């Protein structure tokens, strides 16, 4: 399950959501699903069940790490937590700007985050398919 930041109106939150859409809709549509953080905050039963049933990959836009914390509070397991800022530090040329519409740097940063997540998803799927290696 991919759980992105819900920081509406924040550039890094938008990057996290764009990356989540890219992973779940384009890069790994069969292996992943998307859980809205707001549903976890509201205690939605289906959302809580989803993060309890599957390893979660969280994408946080700031150090408050709401996505990771809410997965844990919902009884889920964070298999891997990503911070958009950490990915940006590794890709300084991709300075994100904009909120509703990301600039080119922001879009490229979302691609970079999505690429890293896709790698983690592949590892998780591989472990599930071959539990002895986990």
């Amino acid at each position, binding site marked *: 399950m991919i759980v992105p930041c819900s920081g509406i109106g924040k550039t890094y939150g938008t990057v996290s959501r764009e990356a989540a859409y890219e992973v779940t809709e384009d890069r790994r549509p069969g292996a992943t699903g998307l859980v809205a953080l707001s549903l976890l905050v509201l205690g939605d039963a289906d959302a809580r069940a989803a993060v309890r049933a599957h390893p979660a990959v969280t994408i946080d836009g700031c150090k408050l790490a709401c996505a990771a914390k809410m997965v844990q509070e919902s009884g889920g397991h964070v298999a891997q937590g990503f911070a958009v*800022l950490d990915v940006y530090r590794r890709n300084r040329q991709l300075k994100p700007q904009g909120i509703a519409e990301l600039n080119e740097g922001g879009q490229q940063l979302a691609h970079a985050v999505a690429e890293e997540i896709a790698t983690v998803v592949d590892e998780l799927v591989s472990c599930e398919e071959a539990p002895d290696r986990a």
Partner: protein
Amino acid sequence: MPSYLETTVDKFIFKVATDRHYSPAGVWALAEGDRIRIGMTDFLQQLNGDVAFAEVRPEGTVLGTGDEVALIETIKTNVGVPSPVGGTVAEVNPAMELSPEAINQDPYGAGWLALIDARDWPTDRDALLDAQAYFELMTGQAAEEAKKR
């Protein structure tokens, strides 16, 4: 370990270390022998958000009081940090290269920016605020920021 003055504005807690001086812009200065250690205040770092990169002027740079000693890029904005003291940059915090988040995590300690060989510390110090005066100024600034939200 310094002691702190502390206030809560909205949901945010802001600390001011009592053992140093401050510029109104939110930069602290702590005398250590002949050198002055400088850094961003807790209020300034919280106001500007998570630090992505910190570029501090290199060792040997000669600064006038108020000259930009560092450029801090955060998730919200770019912040030019004016030096509260004139002199020569003697040492740059090596943590700024790889873990500038130290500014957010420990603004009065591990998140220091630079050590300055001061040209005239007594004169610069007299132009700065003591902790109590800065605390009162900062509390007002924080209240103004809270109104904007």
